[in-house]
């Protein structure tokens, strides 16, 4: 994944600095039961206006990666290290927590999955949204509320001037998710990280939220890191995809490249295990076994016990992620070249 920043796909934003550049991110949790290598060697590149979808199952390290970038991991028992972390031109590699805190909201923002627990139940939406403007821009309460109403309009909430007075419980799940997105984009961040923003929502509402994110990244020129386990969400909105397994990125590429010719057997297996609406087949082909326990990772390639291409080498040597023939594509598999050419 080297060409993301220099990609010319989104030429209008070519002058803007990359929204995100991460090199060799490691996150380690230390607990009573041992040391958990939650994230290992993660590289991320997101250009301004680009959507990178980080795809993986639970425990693969996607959310931890997002929180590490945002500086939101509790320092007790967690070690975060990276060779380089740059958010929209701000080098955070050796930044102290206070410097990172100042960038949150203004330069980078996070949208959580669970909109109800992310909102304060006893404050009106106008107060919560307005707080951003009062703190960061020193606006009066009245002016902040007017800005809040404007934001609600931006994310498509009907009758925003009336609804700023309402409380979180008076909104539906989809509306609450819109409000969280409004809060995140309030100060025009260069990087928006959305952690499973549609997982708890119905497909009808999911479609609306994805359209909203897509519109905002174009209008505001934000880079978006969207975390999901849903291949459909990636197909719907991603420019590029990074697939995570057991704390590592195992494959990167444009969304079409990855879906058409997955270079990692894990990605290929995921694609096969999802029912296709257009071609309801005989049987699904599930991936045997379950995602690995990070406390006791398999030797060699972490995927080898579930992999249909595993050879002797895979059980011994962990494959390094390496660039493939197509620029911008990479995979961490000894058999990546065979995998790309195989029919999905």
């Amino acid at each position, binding site marked *: 994944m080297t060409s993301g920043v220099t990609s010319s796909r989104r030429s209008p934003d070519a002058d803007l600095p990359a929204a995100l550049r991460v090199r060799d991110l490691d996150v380690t949790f230390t607990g009573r039961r041992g040391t958990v290598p939650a994230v290992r060697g993660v590289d991320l590149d997101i250009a301004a206006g680009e959507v990178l979808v980080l795809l993986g*199952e639970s425990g693969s390290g996607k959310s931890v990666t997002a929180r590490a970038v945002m500086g939101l991991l509790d320092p007790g028992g967690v070690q975060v290290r990276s060779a380089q972390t740059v958010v929209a031109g701000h080098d955070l590699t050796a930044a102290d927590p206070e410097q990172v805190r100042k960038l949150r909201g203004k330069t980078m923002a996070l949208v959580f999955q669970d909109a109800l627990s992310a909102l304060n139940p006893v404050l009106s939406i106008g107060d919560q949204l307005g707080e951003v403007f009062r703190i960061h821009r020193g606006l009066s309460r009245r002016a902040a509320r007017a800005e809040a109403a404007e934001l609600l309009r931006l994310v498509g909430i009907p009758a925003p001037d009336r609804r700023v007075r309402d409380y979180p419980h008076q909104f539906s*799940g989809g509306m609450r998710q819109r409000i969280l997105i409004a809060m995140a984009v309030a100060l025009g961040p260069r990087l928006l990280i959305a952690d499973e923003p549609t997982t708890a929502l119905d497909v009808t509402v999911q*479609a*609306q939220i994805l359209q909203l994110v897509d519109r905002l990244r174009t209008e505001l020129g934000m880079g978006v890191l969207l975390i999901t386990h849903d291949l459909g969400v990636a197909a719907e909105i991603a420019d590029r995809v990074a697939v995570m397994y057991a704390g590592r990125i195992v494959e990167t590429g444009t969304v079409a490249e990855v879906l058409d010719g997955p270079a990692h057997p894990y990605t290929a297996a995921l694609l096969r*295990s*999802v029912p296709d609406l257009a071609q309801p087949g005989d049987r699904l082909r599930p991936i045997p076994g379950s995602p690995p326990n990070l406390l006791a990772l398999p030797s060699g390639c972490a995927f080898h016990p579930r992999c249909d291409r595993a050879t002797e080498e895979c059980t011994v040597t962990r494959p390094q992620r390496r660039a493939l023939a197509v620029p911008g594509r990479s995979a961490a598999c000894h058999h990546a070249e065979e995998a790309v050419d195989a029919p999905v």
Partner: protein
Amino acid sequence: MPPSDHPAGPGPASAGPAGSTPTTVGTPTVLSASAGPNTSGPLTADAPTTGEPLLVATGLRKTYRAGRGLGSSSRVHAVDGVDLTVAAGETLGVVGESGCGKSTLARLLVGLERPDSGQVRFAGLDVGTARGTRRRELRRAVQMVFQDPVTSLNPRMPILDVVAEPLDVHKLARGAVARRDRVAELLEMVGLAPDMMRRFPHEFSGGQRQRIGIARALATEPRVVVCDEPVSALDVSVQAQVVNLLAELQQRLGIALVFIAHDLGVVRHVSHRVAVMYLGRLAELGPAGTVYQDPAHPYTRALLGSVPVRHPRERGRERIVLAGDPPSPVDPPSGCRFHTRCPIAQDICARETPALLVPEGDAPSVAGERVAACHFAGTPVTPGRE
């Protein structure tokens, strides 16, 4: 298991009440289709005569008190007049947005909730009024698999006791050896090693726990298993394992499945017939292939249009994107409940509740198999989908 040619699949009549005219569903004639209330013989024995639905729900209604306020008189209309049938050995999928009443329907079908009106009949017996032995037999015959495999298992019980509990309740295993043997058999049936029975739920992964939940449901040799979002809590790579397991078990044991899920792809994959629910009512009901490929109700079309694309090249496809959220079931819209979000709604839709009818435009090849509750069922919507 191609849903279209499943040998145990229902005949054309099962979309409507067997023996009645193919144009309506939910008329009282549905009762005459099933056996009388005095049917004798064990409920768990042979399948009923072909074509006769195993489970028949008629006019099911269930409301709950809304809000916490004292004297609050508003009620949530969770299920509001649902008629459906489940034939022996078939899978009926139920889809719809959250709050549409899917889970309440599931609980009504297994008898965990009493309907305010209407009834559920299993093999001719009213599930709500059965007492004593009959009631226990009904409980045996209709089982449920829950969504969350973690909270549906008692964390302090070894798997042996978790799976054996229904055996104990129904006195289906005499003696410790028989009990253990039966549990071993059940665990093997769901693809778990029998020697795992001494372990506790926390020692299992999500997929394994759902297998345990399925083994427990199968313990009483049920005829119908109602699965409420059985794979929603599982990782993508594990979902397919459980979906395949359910399909296999159905073929092997001939059980009927009611498969409730919000994932339209999974429902399409497992179901012979699909019921689409909107705000407590059925919008459309028919063979999975017909409903998915040629949806008659505008809500079904919108729902299918919201499913994410399979490939970025399909991003530009035309589709109906529904604005807003479903209205509140506390105060549902008049007439057709979908009219407030419907792209083709006319005046009549706000006034008159459409009946579940065979759409006029349905080709003779599928006519009678599929019904939709829309005054303009089958009318193309502009912009048309695809």
